[in-house]
Structure formats: C-alpha cells, structure tokens
C-alpha cells in the first residue's frame, strides 16, 4: 500500500523551485502555439494545466529526438572520435499521464533486453516520474484496452490525482518518490484514506490486448485486411514521432570540413527507406506491409519477444494522424476480422 499525502495545487511552484535548487532538471508540459510538449522548466508559470494529452510524449526524457553520441575530428588520413556523455542531471518528469508513465517499461525492455545501452540507461536511472491521473479523456484514449487506466500507478514514482480545484492526492510509490517528498517535506501534508476513483475519467475498453496478440499471427497473411486499413496512410511518420513507446532509431553523421557529430535520431518503420536495401530490394515495399509491421510489432512481436506491449493507449498517433487513421479503432477491428 502506497503512502498517501495531500499536495496543494498552489504549492507546485515551490515544488518546482525546490527540485531545481536540489540540482534536478524538471520537465513539465509547456504550451507552444498549439503544441504541448515536455520541456525543461524552472518556474511553474509556464507549466500547462488542463490538457487531455500532450502533443508529444515524454519519452524524450530518456530517448531524445536527436542525441549526440560521438564527436569526431577529421585530420588528413587520420580521424579521432570521442564519446559524448549523455545528459547526466537527475531529472524529474512532472505531469505525464499514467499511459506515458507506463511507456518507460516498454522503452526499458527494448533498450536493455539483450545488452545495455550507454545513452538510455544512465538517464533512466536518474529519472523520477511524478504522474498525473486523468480526470477526463477523449474518443482517442484506449488505455484500458492495453492494461492501463486513468489512475494506474505503474511507472510513476509519485502519482498525483486532482481531488478538487485546489488539491492533489499524492500517492508516494517508490524510493524515488519518497526522495522528492524529502526535498520538500512541508508541501506534502498527511492524508487519510482518500479515494481517487470518483474523480477519474471513464475510459471504456475497446479490445483485449491479449486476445489481439493471439489472433495477429493468423491475420498476417490477410493482405486485404491490412490494405483496407492503411490505404489512406501517407507514410508521414507522425504516429511514430508522437508515440511514447516507438523506439526505432537511425544513426546519422553531421559534419563540416573539420569534424562533426554522430547522432542517434528517431526513425519510423512507416518510412519506405527504413528497410530499403542497397540493392534496391525492400522487404516491406508497400505501405500496407509497413502498417502491418507497426501493428504486429506493438501487439504481437514485442509481447512475445520482450514480454511488454508496444502500446499504452495514449491515442496520440490517432490525434496526430493527418488522414485520421485510428489505432484503437483499427486494432479493435482486427479483433473482429476473419482470420
């Protein structure tokens, strides 16, 4: 049983200041035009309130869009390279919903299943997650279909649930969570037996992830099923870039005459170039095969190989899709499709 505390909403500013003063990088939802993403903040004034979902996920806290790996110097016939250390400041991620908090388990499985990862692991080890329960959802949300929920504590070190306009119920879940309380003990008042369920959003389940995983291998050869769902896909890759669990990456060099940087950057299985061979042969030559890969990878291959689902039901891919593809709907339809 986790420890319960009460945190006043008006104390958030002080909490951010104390965390920053203690040497933490604090990432919180910040609005920029119509976009909402997790940015570094030092004062609470910029922190966005009242959102259903941020535009971009929180994964950049441990897996940035671009991450320098090496710096190299070109000198005639010789070349030297030195490693660039990853972000090393302890980071407090404030405000991800339970779906985003759950995504770190999937990312961890990918980056550590066989060997470790020198850029991912140090950041994860120093990451503290202060999650925020959902009091409202929208038609795109389907966390309850993939094992999550609007008040799910998985992945959070502290989970905040807004009980009313003024205060959060704070569930202190881990040692990292207790360390945050220790930095600002006066802000966390004792609470007794508060129930959070009454304020949580109601998200109706659309499908059962386990059943989908069992059905997918038989659906793989059904070309028409995948074609029908993806005929309108323009291959823009938006879905992967806003996804909290998509972890496919590219490694690219940028240089001038004297040297440059080798970077790891996000990539997407939805791009034709992703698998194109030098010979011109492409194992996944058309968009419907790439859509199939996206669904199979998240709902079949990853659960079977890594023991984690590749989807947390945040709905971002569908909200961002320029042609209104809807993962929750499409996977729900696969549950009904004839194998």
């Amino acid at each position, binding site marked *: 049983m986790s420890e319960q505390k009460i945190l006043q909403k008006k104390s958030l500013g002080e909490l951010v200041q104390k965390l920053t003063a203690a040497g933490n990088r604090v990432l919180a939802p910040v609005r920029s035009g119509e976009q909402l993403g997790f940015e570094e903040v030092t004062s609470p004034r910029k922190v966005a309130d009242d959102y259903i979902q941020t535009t971009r996920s929180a994964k950049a806290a441990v897996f940035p869009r671009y991450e320098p790996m090496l710096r190299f110097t070109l000198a005639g016939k010789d070349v*030297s390279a030195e490693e660039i250390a990853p972000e090393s400041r302890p980071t407090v991620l404030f405000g991800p919903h339970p779906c985003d908090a759950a995504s770190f388990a999937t990312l961890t499985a990918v980056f550590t299943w066989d060997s470790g990862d020198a*850029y991912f692991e140090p950041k994860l080890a120093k990451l503290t997650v202060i999650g925020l329960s959902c009091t409202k959802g929208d038609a795109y949300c389907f966390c309850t279909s993939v094992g999550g929920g609007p008040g799910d504590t998985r992945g959070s070190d502290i989970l905040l649930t807004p009980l009313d306009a003024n205060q959060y119920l704070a569930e202190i879940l881990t040692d990292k969570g207790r360390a945050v309380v220790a930095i600002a003990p006066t802000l966390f008042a004792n609470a007794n037996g508060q129930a959070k369920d009454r304020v949580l959003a109601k998200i109706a389940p659309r499908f059962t992830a386990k059943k989908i995983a069992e059905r997918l291998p038989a659906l793989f050869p059904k070309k028409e099923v995948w074609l029908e769902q993806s005929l309108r896909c323009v291959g823009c890759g938006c879905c992967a870039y806003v996804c909290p669990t998509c972890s496919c990456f590219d490694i690219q060099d940028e240089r001038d005459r004297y040297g440059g940087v080798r970077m790891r950057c996000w990539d997407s299985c939805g791009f034709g170039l992703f698998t194109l061979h030098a010979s011109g042969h492409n*194992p996944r030559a058309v968009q419907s095969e790439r859509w199939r890969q996206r669904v199979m990878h998240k709902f079949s291959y990853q659960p079977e190989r890594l023991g984690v689902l590749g989807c947390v039901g945040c709905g971002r891919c569908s909200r961002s899709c320029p042609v209104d593809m809807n993962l929750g709907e499409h996977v729900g339809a696969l549950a009904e499709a004839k194998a």
Partner: protein
Amino acid sequence: MNNNNGRNQYTPYRMRIAKVTDEAPGVKTFRLEFAEPAEAETFAFRAGQFGEYSVYGEGESVFCIASPPTRKGYIECTFRQAGRVTSALADRDEGDVIGFRGPYGNIFPIEQWHGKTLLFIAGGIALPPMRCVIWNCLDLRDKYDDVTIIYGARSVADLVYKNELADWGKRGDVKLYTTVDPGGQTPDWKGRVGFVPTILEQVAPKAENTIAIVCGPPIMIKLTMPVLAKLGFTPNQIYTTLENRMKCGVGKCGRCNVGKVFVCKDGPVFTLAQLNELPPEY
C-alpha cells in the same frame, strides 16, 4: 559508458586500412588493422559475424567480416559502392583510418559440421559473406569431408576474389565450379556459362551427410532452393546468411526486425528450416 567488454557498443574501433584490393567494377576489399594494438589483442570473432563500418562524417554501413578468424591480426571487408557510406569508403586509401564496431550476430556452426561434406553456393557480391566460412573451413581442412564451391556472377568482370578463385581451382581438395550468366563470358573464359541453379543441377552434389551454405541475390536463392530440395537436401541441411538493412547491430533500432526475430541478434545465419518459420520480410 560501457556494456560490451567495458566498451560503449556504439563507439567504433579505429582501424587503419592496410591494403586495398580492387575485386570487380565498384567492388573493393579492405584489409583493416587496429590502430590501437591493444584492441587487437582483445578482439575476437567467429565465422558468420558482421560489423558496422564507418566513414566519420558520412555514416555507417553493415557488412560481414570477410576474412576468417583463423587469420589473426586483421579483418577484411568487401563492399560494393552503392550509397553514401560505401562511396566514401571507396574513396579511402591505404593508411586512412575508418571506424569498425562489432562483431555482431550469430555464427556458422562449423564445429557441428565436422566430418561432413560442405557445399558452398554463392552468387555475385554474396561470396564475401561466405569467404569467411570457406577459408575458416579450408584452414581446418582435415575436419571436413569433400568441399565443393559453386560461384556465379553476371559477367567475368563481376567475379570477386579472382586470385583466390584461381587458388581454390588449383587445390586438389576443393571442387570449384565458376560460372557467369549467359552473355557475361569473355572469349578466354574457361568456366561455365549459366545461372547458378542450372549449374547446381548439372553438378548434382549428393545430399547425404552434406551441409549446403547458400548466399546470393533473392532471385538466385529462390531458384536454388527447389534444386536443393530435388537433390534431397532437407531445410535443416541448408544455411544462409541474411543481409537486412541495419543500423545499431545490437537488436534495438528495429530495422532488421522480421517477425519476432532480429536478424542482427538471432542471425544473420539461419537454416532454411528457421527461415520457413519467418514472415517473408527479408
């Protein structure tokens, strides 16, 4: 910054190009030596493994290690100039430093093949991924029964390792059949003319106690497998090595994912029996 013998697995070794060999139009072989001799001491690999070769500023490309682990002190790679990185590689000269990280992937189980007859079938630029295991087995020649190599290319000029083909042809303990596609022969060509599957049918090697190692372009593989089946080879007797596009080499970047398999971790070496279990996305 570790996790691979204390090394960051994304950081390449510095390799000095010790020798450049022009193999065929657009195809070169580099002999690479470790710029830091101490790294050569701890480096070890086995036949079938591959690596990421990099030209800093241009990027990384993945090829097999084409030299056998029985030859110490260097590794070799053979590549065809096709894109940005391979074009930059082709511009390097002897003495230049490039990057290499690896070895990655699984191996040809050559110990399990002791006492067996080996049949190597390769097409075009797919001989390099097999050269490592061919030399490895030839360097341990008394461990194996007959060794047969069938190698074809589009034209005489496109044959790689011409000197080694000549050497293998002279050896009494190797049966070598070289062939070029119809129209690819020159007036003084002494080898055969015809596609690899046709030559395989003509040579008709026995399947009993034999391991077939096949590598080539998809069309050659597709037409060779039925011939092997007709000769009596079972899917467990046939090995190949896949060449999917890769970036990380360590099972994370997602590129070489085929079904639940990562070609870079579970492969690149697969038996036909294993391939038959995979979706056809390689």
